[in-house]
């Protein structure tokens, strides 16, 4: 017993150090942008960054799970849109209460994830292809269901407060953190608990580490894989509700391309695309790195074409730093 306590201690210390270092890239960005522009480090702008992180962040949380299983989900962006549209239809066309609309939206996301999971687990279609198919199917369905027009939540003013109201502002006047941000943090905490404390989390890692070994150990690999994709879909559903609430409308045409940002967030945060490794904290940091970068470059009025170049380069650098950090650790 006594023997095993000592290494445990160093482990914790290492972990703590690692966590601080993981913030490294983010802190560097903050420092650089703060020095470069007085408009960067201001309450409103920070809230802006937080808000800009929310949707991509929630998508990234979801996709972290499938990436840890060694899979991928390219459909998260358009499934988000589909969920937003479904919520819009339920609330504005069917005139049902907002909570019900939100619930149906979440379920729509989960259902898309379930279909992904079934196709991947049962038909043995590679996740890349299965979810590429779903990307298109969800995109098309979102257009079909919406009738090709944005759906506005004008009949339900409450809907907008889901993302844009501020619970903190109600408690501490002036401290107006939009609910979208709080929802993102709440989702991150739940995701983290699921990943580290529950059976689902354990099997998420097991699948990514050695699926065959898990199968031979009697784990119902298919069922858990389906569960993981469904969970990812559920997060996409949540992202859909948040984006619809933020825009006060369900925009049927956006969504494609969002998957790459979300995957980048997870990977910048240290989630390994070959599976078996990853953390929610990392993903959250990764998502903030991306939105901080975008925001800062805009604040500095860097020409847009150069923003693209710089973003591309910094994504690579951030992942490189993470790799170096872990190699040392």
């Amino acid at each position, binding site marked *: 017993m006594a*023997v*095993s306590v000592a*290494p*445990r201690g160093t*482990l914790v210390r290492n972990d703590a150090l690692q966590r601080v270092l993981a913030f490294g890239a983010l802190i560097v960005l903050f420092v650089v942008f703060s020095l470069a522009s007085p408009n960067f480090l201001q309450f409103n702008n920070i809230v802006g960054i937080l808000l800009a992180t929310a949707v991509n962040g929630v998508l990234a949380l979801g996709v972290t799970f499938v990436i840890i299983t060694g899979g991928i989900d390219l459909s998260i962006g358009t499934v988000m849109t589909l969920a937003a549209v479904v919520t819009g239809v339920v609330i504005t066309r069917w005139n049902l209460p907002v909570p019900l609309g939100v619930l149906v939206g979440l379920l729509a996301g989960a259902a898309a994830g379930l279909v992904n999971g079934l196709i991947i687990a049962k038909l043995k279609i590679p996740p890349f292809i299965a979810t590429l198919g779903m990307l298109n199917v969800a995109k098309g369905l979102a257009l079909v269901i919406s009738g090709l027009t944005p759906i506005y939540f004008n009949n339900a003013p409450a809907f907008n407060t889901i993302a844009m109201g501020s619970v903190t502002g109600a408690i501490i006047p002036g401290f107006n953190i939009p609910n979208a941000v709080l929802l993102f943090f709440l989702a991150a905490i739940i995701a983290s608990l699921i990943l580290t*404390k*529950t*059976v*689902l*989390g*354990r099997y998420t*890692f*097991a699948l*990514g*580490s*050695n699926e*065959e*070994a*898990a*199968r*031979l*150990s*009697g*784990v*119902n690999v298919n069922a858990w894989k389906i569960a993981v994709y469904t969970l990812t879909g559920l997060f996409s559903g949540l992202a859909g509700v948040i984006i619809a609430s933020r825009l006060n409308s369900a925009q049927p045409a956006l969504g494609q391309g969002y998957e790459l940002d979300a995957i980048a967030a997870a990977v910048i945060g240290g989630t390994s695309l070959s599976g*078996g*490794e990853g953390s929610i904290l990392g993903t959250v940091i990764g998502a903030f790195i991306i939105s901080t970068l975008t925001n800062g470059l805009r604040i500095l009025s860097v020409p847009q074409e150069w923003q693209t170049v710089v973003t591309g380069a910094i994504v690579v650098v951030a992942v490189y730093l993470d790799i170096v950090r872990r190699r040392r650790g």
Partner: protein
Amino acid sequence: MDNVVVLMEGITKSFPGVQALSEGYFELRSGEVHALLGENGAGKSTLMKVLTGIYPKDSGRILYKGQAVEIPTPKAAQDLGISIIHQELNLMPHLTVAQNIFIGREPRSGLRFVLDEQQINEQTRQLFDMMHLQLDPRDKVGDLTVAKQQMVEIAKALSFNSEVLIMDEPTAPLTETEIEDLFRIIRQLREKGVAIVYISHRLEEIKQIADRVTVMRDGRYINTVGTRDVTIQQIISMMVGRTIYETAPEVPETADHETVLEVKHLNRGRSIKDVSFELKRGEILGVAGLMGAGRTEVARAIFGADPIDSGEIIVAGKKAPIKSPQDAVKHGIGYLSEDRKRFGAALGLDVETNIALSAFQKFLRFLGWVDSGKTRTTADHFVKALAIKTPSVRQKVRNLSGGNQQKVIIGKWLTANTDILIFDEPTRGIDVGAKSEIYKLLNELSSQGKSIIMISSELPEILRMSHRVLVMCEGRVTGELPIAEATQERIMHLATQRESYL
């Protein structure tokens, strides 16, 4: 007999192009250790995989305690009380030892879906205490040596408290002390009435531990006999269908040959400490040691697979700056890894490509064009020369049995035709017939003037093959013995000279 737990009859199983089992038969009684023997590819693993729900059988029936059963999934086998240690490691490297052992049946706390991590670790610790195993349940499996990983596999199988326990070559990566621990555990289980299937190519173990022996050949059942009623020679002839004559090894005098490889003051982290030795032309240098002695590390360092901290490698009298395996091959060094699945074969590729992999430059024409006629004939040549059992050189290596995979990798290095060959556990998981072929091969190679470093955890093999023996312990060379002076006792003595004792 009414204490028969498992009866398999008329089991057939075929894979594309291979009839792995035809009329497989197996009878297992409670409270016995039943050895299942046969050459590489005889169908032993396949038979056990059918029993444990991994492969569906094509036909035949399985009786469990007299009842006909269907075992469609690994879970079904577990539920019946059958557990298995696979020939290949089946662990999740990113998870901890304890998490691996309890995967699929984790203790839960409070809410049904929340894990009780403390409980998992505690139960694992108890299991390890029982096995006399020094291992932290919270260590990541990926950080362990192959041997430790194998012990985790064994612990996992034991943790099921099954009535039937199948061990498919459990000792292949283990060294003597661990094997003794394992045997002690096996005997305890036998006392408790557990039925144990024991598959191994180390026939001397069979005599020690098994009560009965079933021999298979070419997917067929040959015979079942009591261990006490037969000699090892008889078992061998049942396995191969012919008699193998072992000629007493001749040890050539190589002391005055020129030195082809000299290693000076090699250091790498904590695992290699000031290792120096020489290798002569035409010599087989056996390297003995316990698990974790650092032999594999030294081999990998010489081969350029891992970077070194300091030290020199001198090939044929010239300093060789080896920074990568590619450099090593250029300097005429080949390395056959102990972990063939991870480092040895490109399992998804065919036999031909694997055999040519180290030496494509020999098959090139213009513009990187590969002379595929030449690769084919070379591959065909080695398939025949090494008696590799495969339907064609186009077969994927994944579909070969473990032993045949090993032969393919040997074929690769013979194709590369390097002067210095480092064989790390070359006969791990290889049947007697193939083993003696490989021994013959090693001898032939050395008589052709090739120099061989043979790392082995099997002392009889070391004693039989080496011209000289190097012993390592905790990353240091603790001794060097001419073969004439080497005995099991002296080697063990050197292999246990831990720094703490000095």
